[in-house]
């Protein structure tokens, strides 16, 4: 399995295509690189060198009891980013993955050419993926998951069982505490980020207000809505691929 090791932790990576560097990041809890691998990544790989990774504790990366704060996840990204190639990279992130990208761009401005932030929550602790855990009734919990995962969990399939096992490991570690402790981004910092940013939000997403705030504060941002909720990479895969293709090639 292609991976990068950081402090004894194996991080699963895949590289597709050749061209200028693009790195794609998924969201917490229910995410993995699969949503990009089977979504926008192959299309982008026609013209770009696309680096995908599983966050620690997710997908095929090693489990980790700690390190779900943006600084640590940004350091993980810093370790793997050279695999995307030399020069400044386009970072594409969904949900908490978008925040990792945003925090990374603020810390390593020279390393980033452009950002695409897909349904990023603000403040960081407001990740919709947590709704499943805060729900009081099982059916609410289920409907807080992305569509593609709901039947797996409900039917007790192998996919459902493996997802539940991943969630259990994450929740037993520091993930929830790290999320709660993560400070909000400061408007003053965001206002200084002189970098093209495409913001893509679901028009019915609970994070919509975060998109509007980012659009107001970031000096070079454009906000685009797609029909839907939070889980755009799986629920609007084709439309998102079209948009990314358009943005990265012509934007």
């Amino acid at each position: 399995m292609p991976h990068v090791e950081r402090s004894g932790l194996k991080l699963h990576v895949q590289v597709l295509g050749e061209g200028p560097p693009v790195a794609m990041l998924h969201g917490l809890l229910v995410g993995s690189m699969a949503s990009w691998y089977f979504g926008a990544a192959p299309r982008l790989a026609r013209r770009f060198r696309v680096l995908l990774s599983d966050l620690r504790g997710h997908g095929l990366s090693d489990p980790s009891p700690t390190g779900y704060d943006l600084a640590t996840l940004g350091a993980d990204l810093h370790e793997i980013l050279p695999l995307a190639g030399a020069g400044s990279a386009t970072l594409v992130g969904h949900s908490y993955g978008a925040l990792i990208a945003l925090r990374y761009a603020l810390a390593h401005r020279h390393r980033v050419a452009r950002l695409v932030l897909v349904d990023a929550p603000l403040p960081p602790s407001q990740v919709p993926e947590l709704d499943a855990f805060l729900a009081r009734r099982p059916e609410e919990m289920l409907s807080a998951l992305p569509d593609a995962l709901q039947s797996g969990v409900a039917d007790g399939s192998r996919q459902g069982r493996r997802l539940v096992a991943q969630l259990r490991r994450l929740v037993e570690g520091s993930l929830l505490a790290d999320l709660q402790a993560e400070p909000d981004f400061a408007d003053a910092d965001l206002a200084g980020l002189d970098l093209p940013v495409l913001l893509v939000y679901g028009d019915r997403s609970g994070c919509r207000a975060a998109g509007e705030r980012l659009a107001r504060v970031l000096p070079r941002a454009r906000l685009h809505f797609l029909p839907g909720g939070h889980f755009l990479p799986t629920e609007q895969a084709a439309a998102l691929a079209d948009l990314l293709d358009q943005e990265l090639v012509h934007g």
Partner: protein
Amino acid sequence: MSTQSEHVLTTLAAMLREVIGESWADDLDIGRETSFNRDLELESIEFVALAERLQTAFGARVDFAGWLADRELDQIISLTVGEVVDFICTCLTSSEAA
């Protein structure tokens, strides 16, 4: 089935058992009719691991990323082993002819 087809099927079946990594898969008959979703209950991330192994084994002759780009995830997951074998064989045959 042609020899090439049989070879590809054997290779793919071995890779699947490796990716799944659970003992039930070792005892399972994996053939052309085996469905990734229904029979193997493969997670999408395991399909990524499989695609990467296939790309490594068959190299530039098989454009997986391109093939995947034209399909939605639910189409991919509902494929059978036979359909993937046929795709690989088609690529191998046309690259030999070229």
